[in-house]
């Protein structure tokens, strides 16, 4: 049986390279079923949506599974100060020091503020948080985040929720090539083929929400993404043959040597 290499983030091992989100599902029950079917082991939860004063928050109830780790996100915050506060609140309420930083002052396209994200990462990493920042596919910013102590980087494939696939692929390639920490392609992946492409390129994991949540059959779509992520990763590990536009003679420039 072929097996992917496990992914390690901040010393923690993951057997699935598909991370999932919890928003947009037509019911919390269906969300739980889809996530279970995806075999995802890291699941993001928007702190703003969780009822922190209520132990029986309906969304959290459906995520109580042995292999599911929660990754609280700071969605909705607009600056580093709010993000740091949110991370601390999440640690207290959900008992985890993992946090996905989402700092988007622009509520229309939900694009990350690199400056504030770097500032928040610096503070939180120093305080012992496992920080996974969501950011533009900006190679320099990714290196700075690595230096600041991020546990992984989460560049976007295309605008969040857009289902447009890897529009930023040229920059993602550079990020993947240069990174010493895991690269998780976070947003805009709308089809299993997009996820497979990201994995083939060498991404360490992908995060999918909208494409699964609003599918007609989220459970089957979750399985489809699971399979595509595994296929893409296995292909990457098995080293894809390079592609070419033209048929190549085996040695067009040097075959004359045989004729001498």
């Amino acid at each position, binding site marked *: 049986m072929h097996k992917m290499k496990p992914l390690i983030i901040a010393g923690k091992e993951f057997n699935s390279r598909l991370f999932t989100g919890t*928003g*947009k*599902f*037509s*019911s*919390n029950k269906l969300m739980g079923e889809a996530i279970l079917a995806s075999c995802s082991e890291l699941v993001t939860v928007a*702190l*703003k*949506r*969780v*009822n*922190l004063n209520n132990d029986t928050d309906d969304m959290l109830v459906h995520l109580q599974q042995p292999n599911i780790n929660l990754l609280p996100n*700071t969605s*909705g*915050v*607009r*600056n580093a*100060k*709010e993000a740091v*506060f*949110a991370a601390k*609140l999440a640690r207290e309420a959900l008992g985890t020091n993992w946090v996905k930083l989402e700092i988007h*002052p*622009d*509520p*229309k*396209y939900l694009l990350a503020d690199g400056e504030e994200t770097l500032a928040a990462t610096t503070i939180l990493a120093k305080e012992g948080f496992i920080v996974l920042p969501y950011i533009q596919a900006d190679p320099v910013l990714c290196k700075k985040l690595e230096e600041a102590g991020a546990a992984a980087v989460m560049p976007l494939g295309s605008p969040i*929720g857009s*289902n447009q696939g890897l529009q930023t692929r040229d920059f993602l390639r550079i990020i993947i090539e240069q990174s010493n920490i895991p690269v998780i392609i976070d947003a805009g992946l709308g089809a299993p083929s997009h996820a497979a492409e990201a994995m083939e390129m060498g991404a360490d994991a992908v995060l999918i929400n*909208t494409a699964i*949540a*609003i599918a007609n059959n989220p459970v089957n779509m979750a399985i489809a993404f699971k399979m595509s992520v595994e296929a893409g990763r296995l292909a990457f590990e098995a080293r894809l043959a390079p592609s070419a536009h033209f048929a190549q003679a085996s040695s067009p420039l040097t075959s004359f040597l045989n004729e001498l």
Partner: protein
Amino acid sequence: MTFFDIHQQYNWDTVKVSIHSKTVKDVEDALAKPNRTLEDFKALISPAASPFLEQMAQKSQEITQKRFGKTIQLYVPLYLSNECTNSCIYCGFRCENETARVTLNEHQVLKEVEVIKAMGYENVLLVTGEHPKKNGCDYLQKIIRLIKPHFSQISLEVAPLDNEGYKLLVNEGVHAVYVYQETYNSERYPVYHPRGKKSNMQYRLETADRLGEEGVRKVGLGCLLGLEDWRTDSFFTALHINYLEKKWWRTKFSISFPRMRPFAGSYKPNVEVTDQDLLQLICACRIFNEEVEVTLSTREQPKFRDNLVKLGITAMSAGSKTEPGGYAENSKELEQFKITDDRSPKEICEMINYKGYEVVWKDWDECLQTNI
């Protein structure tokens, strides 16, 4: 520059003619494009678009699901005061109406909060008339402090305030402010708003700019359907949002199109806005702007609301009372307008689930907010 300056560049009648002269071809083009302009929006709200309603509804559903998922947010209005110094001729709170006037005291507000919390709400909308001495900024500040421990999201639908007022209330934790223009028709605006602070149309047109300036997270806009040509008024609403989104890019926007309801004093709507019209408008808004939140209140009848759940709206109220003290005491004589959908939040929840959608009770946490 504020929206007042933009508004002045447009002539109501010219816009109206332009909307009414849109053709089937314009509608087809608007529907086929990936991004729509204001001219496309005109086509989508024009009479020429009515044969395309089914197609528009399908597109609206698809776009809304992509952005918001299969979810509907629930909120509830808490009427704090019906005291008002304005005389808007269509409103149940107008000062000439001889109804009893009430501004809830802290004890009464807490009684209301108790009932609202028991219904499951985390998101409350505070509503007042305009009476600076009775329900102005000081009063609102006091009430927000009082109820803050009970809600994760507090919004306001109160008279326009100045910058200082908004700054103060944002610092107290206000998340969203809704200020409806009622009509963008500058010739007719004074007819509806003859006296009081609200008669100053420019001040109202500039309100959303003040809110953007003071960093309010969400601003709600809209016009009152039934006063003037709904197509022209909704064009100006779209123009307003378009301008605001570019200028106040950190702010989230919400839109609502309340249709006029009977009230004490019984003002009859000037123009009829049919169910089909309202559906067309909501779908057009969604197709034009994929990110704007769209609210539908209990003014609308149950069957209409049930069907709209999947067609472009993102938020609904449920179990609403439109009179101060209405939740704990229920005295209908003070109400601003009659609601049409009197189902309880639990019933609305069941309906939403039955439609295959999940209810979002909480979408923000006041404690996450820092002052800017």
